[in-house]
């Protein structure tokens, strides 16, 4: 069994040796460098476009944030909301028409049947 295994080991090594010889060392074709640079430039273009797009998005986001910030900071806009407290706003919202809802309920006891 062991001798079989040893034999296999040797055979495998011989096969790897034959494989090494069979592969050899190929030479690069004349197009190797031009193709490589074409791939590099293509990748660079893609990276550059992506970066440019990301920068544009970032700039737009900053501009939008500034615009919203300015809108919120400028006095005069949304003054009611800015100056009123919650209680004041609630009181203002309670119009006279809505008073029925908060007045105590009165019962007409006269209509009540006697025993």
């Amino acid at each position: 069994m062991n001798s079989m295994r040893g034999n296999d080991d040797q055979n495998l090594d011989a096969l790897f040796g034959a494989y090494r010889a069979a592969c050899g060392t190929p030479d690069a074709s004349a197009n190797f460098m031009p193709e490589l640079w074409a791939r590099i430039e293509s990748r660079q273009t893609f990276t550059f476009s992506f970066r440019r797009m990301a920068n544009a998005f970032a700039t737009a986001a900053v501009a939008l944030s500034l615009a919203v910030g300015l809108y919120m900071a400028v006095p005069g806009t949304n003054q009611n909301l800015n100056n009123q407290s919650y209680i004041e706003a609630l009181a203002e919202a309670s119009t006279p028409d809505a008073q029925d809802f908060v007045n105590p309920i009165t019962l007409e006891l006269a209509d009540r049947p006697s025993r």
Partner: protein
Amino acid sequence: MLVDFGLITRAQKGDAAAFNEIVTAYRKRILGTITRLIARPEDVEDVAQEVFLRLYFSLDQLRKEEVFEPWLYRLTVNAAYDYLRKQRRRQEFRMSDLSEQQVMLADAMAGGKAEQDDQRHKKVREAVDSLLGAVSEADRILLMLKEVEGLSLKELEKVYNVNENALKVRLFRARQRVLKAFGSAEKKEGSG
């Protein structure tokens, strides 16, 4: 080292001529390694270009001169691994391939110094490619680097960034798997 670190530093700064020199210096070695790793000559240049492409875009991360070559090896191994994984052309362990493999083995052992024609080389490549179907792509590459490229364990340690013992265990297991496949093929061959 085939180039001096000054050249690498120039390439890091964007000097295209310096990068060209690095590619020219290492091209043959990388092509040879990839040929042995993937066993498909028609795709070797494509994978080699991918290696140098990755080198170009990661060159600025390199700090120490002594890690350049192991690092380039790692890029090569990774590109070959990605290629093999994409291909998934793992051949079934077929009886016909193995018979041919045995023929090639006998041929290689008996007539190693005899004239070598392209057809015979192709068959040997196909036989080994088929035999390595018994292990994963990662183990295949590790085995190739050790058994065919002839890298020492110390060199492999630098390429893989793992300790020697872990490599030994992994190599042993990979070789055992290949041997098992090889042995079972021989048994079939013998009984057939």
